[in-house]
């Protein structure tokens, strides 16, 4: 393919993926409010549009027009840059998420992924780690003790759970033998006995549970929302932020949620692969969306169920339970793969 059409295809893919991600973020906030409401016998947003469907748009417009306040004593440059440092890693991670198998559209060939890096998983972890800097810098530059404490907690939490998350993924990598997310997905094609899809969740259930717990902690969601524990720290690291800057942090948080959900559905639930051969007429991106939304629903569900854990409980659980369990799982998986291959 000539270079011009390659660039065009890539740009269109980027636009579409970003559009879908941002739309999902917007309606994730709506879905979260609605689902939480129904769990609490309420109705949630009902005023803007039918059943409140236009609520995210109204919220977005409101945030656009809010006054931008920079607290006195804040480090203005870092204060302004921190939300961007936070948001960009959450969005560029989607570059290696395969959303469909190879397809041809209008005579142009698309790979179903913006860029099939051979170290895709490593890339996601590398850029996602950068997001912690935005949180810490934002908390520090606000010149507020609440924001600062929130930033520190967030840093400690992200570092602790990044380890468990990494260990839980290595098992999957051993099974599929690649860091490329496309290869990982393709390795999960087919079924056992004709009705059990060959997904990694059936081979790596412990890793899946550990990954989901670590993902919840990574994205600072309840019950691990220590960094923004509103009863203690007002709002955590973005206490002093308002208007657009605040919404950038918000966008980053939800973008990260969608990213880890996408990753979980690719690594453990077969990504864009249909669960059964009969269902293969449904396009791949629908399957990926379904799986991702199921996980996002789970995120909301546990938010509606569990109370916040204490910070020492959080650390204890991360270091004394999750990391040993994932290490043991890694050992067992490695042995199993070795025996299977010989």
């Amino acid at each position, binding site marked *: 393919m000539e270079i011009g059409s390659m660039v065009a295809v890539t740009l269109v893919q980027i636009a579409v993926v970003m559009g879908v991600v941002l739309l999902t973020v917007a309606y994730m906030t709506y879905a979260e409010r609605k689902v939480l*409401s*129904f769990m609490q016998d309420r109705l949630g947003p009902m005023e803007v549009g039918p059943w409140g469907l236009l609520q995210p748009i109204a919220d977005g417009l409101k945030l656009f027009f809010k006054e931008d306040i920079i607290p006195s004593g804040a480090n203005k440059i870092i204060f302004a840059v921190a939300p961007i440092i936070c948001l960009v890693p959450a969005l560029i991670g989607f570059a290696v998420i395969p959303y469909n198998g190879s397809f041809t559209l209008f005579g142009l060939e698309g790979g179903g992924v913006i860029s099939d890096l051979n170290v895709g998983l490593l890339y996601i972890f590398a850029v996602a780690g950068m997001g912690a800097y935005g949180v810490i810098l934002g908390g520090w530059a606000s010149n507020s003790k609440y924001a600062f404490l929130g930033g520190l907690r967030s840093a400690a939490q992200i570092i602790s759970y990044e380890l468990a998350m990494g260990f839980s993924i290595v098992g999957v990598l051993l099974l599929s033998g690649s860091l490329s997310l496309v290869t990982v997905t393709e390795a999960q094609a087919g079924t056992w006995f004709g009705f059990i899809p060959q997904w990694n969740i059936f081979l790596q259930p412990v890793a899946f549970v550990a990954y989901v717990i670590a993902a919840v902690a990574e994205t600072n969601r309840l019950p691990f929302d220590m960094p923004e524990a509103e009863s203690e720290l007002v709002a955590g690291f973005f206490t002093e932020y308002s208007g657009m800057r605040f919404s950038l942090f918000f966008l980053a948080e939800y973008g990260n949620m969608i990213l880890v959900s996408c990753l979980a559905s690719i690594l453990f639930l077969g990504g864009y692969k249909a669960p059964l051969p009969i269902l293969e007429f449904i396009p791949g991106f629908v399957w990926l969306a379904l799986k991702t939304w199921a996980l996002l629903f789970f995120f909301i569900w546990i938010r509606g169920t569990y109370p916040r854990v204490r910070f020492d409980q959080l650390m204890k659980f991360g270091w004394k339970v999750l990391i040993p369990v994932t290490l043991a799982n890694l050992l067992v998986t490695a042995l199993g793969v070795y025996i299977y291959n010989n």
Partner: protein
Amino acid sequence: MGLIRNIFMTELLMGLKIVFMQMFKPTITLQYPHVKHPIPDGYRGLMSLLRYEDGTERCVGCSLCEAACPSNCIKVVSDEVPGQPLVRYAREYYLDITRCIFCGFCTEACPVDALAMTKVYEAAVYDRRDLMFDKAKLYELGERYLEDGKAYLTHHRMDDGTLHPVEGLGDNRYHFPAVDAEHGGVQPEQIGLTAEALEVEETTR
């Protein structure tokens, strides 16, 4: 068993199940500005002044409401009806709703059931001066919410002013001690006092 339960986190899963089932239960939200709760007849809302069915004002300007008001928000200026000596009415009537505590004592004090409370509870305005009700505003409210006012008076076992005597109406009327003294005074059991307690009070006096 306990270890297995811990490993599979059964308690956490039970919690998840309960919350999930809760999602399908009917919601109890009332879409307030669009849908409103039914208001009971005895509800103490905004004050209003009522008229008789022939259109004459009920208020005779006796100022008993002014005396009964615990927050001193009523001001009555009474006058003789022109051309009718000894027939009095309220020439001016001021009621400061910003100070009103909606206790309803004024309606109980009124001997002619001119005051009644409506079911209006959305009293927010942009200008606080709009909450200084005068006579015109009170009669306007009374006309607009006449049914509310009648229901209120009936519910509180006062007269509904229709001149049709109803069994039990008037039982709940507030009795001024001075008024009652003219009619033989307050009976001790009426204010929850036994005869012995009353005697003790008199001897100490």
